[in-house]
């Protein structure tokens, strides 16, 4: 089936792109196209112009700047899962990227395309939240950096409006270790829960940042402070439920199954990440 006619243009650089966005009223940027193309094919979206940003070189980079790792919007999930700097400084993100969809989709799908897709079961937000990322946006008039917690309005919407784009994502590169697990449906790539954690230690506090997506109706962040050299997975579960139980995604997966599943995922993530770590005591949900 052919969709309706659309025009297709390629900006030379970011400046060119922003003025194009301003001059069309019904355009959309396409990066990897791995989300958008299906919508266009099935006429689920009405647009006149596609602006292909995938060839803008300024959006394709990885830079380590002190304790900050900055990733250009156009980096593909395949590039992320193969990048040595990302693997060593932000393992949770490299693993999350490798868990998205399938080999073919990851070849073209980009990090910005993932976080900007109106897709409930996005995997990447969990890793960005755990690694306390900021999302760097640009429009004709201003550049703005938003905390990831603020960027994700709910499971479908973000604070990225029509005439602005995500330029890059900045992550903390100073976590002691970080990790990620996706529990997906049998025979499908779709997440039941996507969860990441990162351990941060300083002279006055040690804590674990935990990000969860594809489970609540908004990607969420929990900060778990480590007291008495103990990590209690039950406390993490209780904290999540006390704050967000009312917004667990309601779909074909029964609520009770979802709650059992997230307990198991918390346990596995804690055990896999910390079983060899110093003298931490781990208490699991069981």
């Amino acid at each position, binding site marked *: *089936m*052919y*969709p*309706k*006619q*659309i*025009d*297709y243009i*390629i900006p030379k650089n970011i400046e060119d792109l922003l003025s194009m966005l301003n001059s069309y009223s019904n355009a959309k940027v*396409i990066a990897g*196209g*791995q989300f958008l*193309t*299906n919508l*266009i*094919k*099935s006429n689920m979206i009405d647009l006149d112009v*596609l602006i*292909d940003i*995938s060839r803008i070189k300024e959006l394709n980079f990885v830079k380590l700047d002190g304790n900050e790792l900055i990733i250009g919007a156009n980096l593909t999930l*395949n590039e992320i*899962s*193969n990048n040595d700097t990302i693997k060593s400084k932000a393992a949770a993100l*490299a693993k999350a990227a*490798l868990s998205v*969809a*399938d*080999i*073919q*989709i*990851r*070849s*073209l799908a980009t990090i910005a395309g993932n976080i900007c897709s109106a897709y409930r079961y996005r995997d990447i937000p969990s890793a960005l939240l755990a690694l306390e990322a900021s999302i760097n946006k640009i429009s004709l008039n201003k550049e703005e950096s938003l905390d990831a917690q603020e960027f994700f309005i709910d499971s479908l919407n973000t604070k990225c409006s029509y005439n602005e784009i995500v330029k890059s994502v900045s992550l903390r590169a100073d976590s002691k270790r970080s990790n990620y697990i996706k529990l997906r449906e*049998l*025979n499908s*790539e779709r997440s039941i829960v996507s969860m990441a954690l990162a351990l941060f230690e300083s002279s006055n506090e040690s804590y674990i940042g935990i990000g969860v997506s594809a489970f609540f109706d908004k990607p969420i962040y929990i900060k778990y402070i480590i007291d008495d050299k103990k990590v209690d997975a039950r406390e993490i579960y209780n904290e999540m439920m006390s704050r967000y139980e009312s917004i667990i995604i309601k779909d074909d997966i029964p609520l009770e199954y979802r709650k059992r599943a997230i307990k198991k995922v918390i346990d596995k993530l804690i055990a896999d990440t910390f079983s060899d770590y110093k003298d931490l005591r781990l208490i699991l949900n069981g």
Partner: protein
Amino acid sequence: MANEENGLRKSIKIVVNGTRYSLYVEPRMLLVHLLRDKLGIKSVHIGCDSAQCGACSVIMNNKLVKSCNVFAVQAADSEILTLEGLKDNPLMRSAIDSFIKSNAYQCGYCTPGMLNLLYYIKSNKDSADASLDINDMLIGNICRCTGYINIIKAFKRELGAQDGGSDSR
């Protein structure tokens, strides 16, 4: 890429199986339709048209992509390889032999996509994708006939004893 005088057609250059083409395409045309309908490359199958089944998988600039999920204009200036262009490549020859020896096909509709996947993994042995269990490699490729067991056998034959021996998909 240039706009044609009338209408929305764009001029693109593309190399497919070693042959250079200069063509006019509508932006809404998918790569799979360019390959099948304009260039007559029939190993590229359409199974679902929604980026699920992998029957349309081709190699684009050394990456495996689903050609039903790429507009032809996005493939401008790229190099595409399909089974027709790879059949004499030693890595692909050996993949085909393993499919035959393992009886890894029935109707054969998914087979070109499966073979391109196996070829991609063999050509990128150090990649994160090649470190996956075979079941996870196969997530983007659906077979409605074999139950996967013999496809997994063929993959194992080619890749060595990687995990993925079950038919849990």
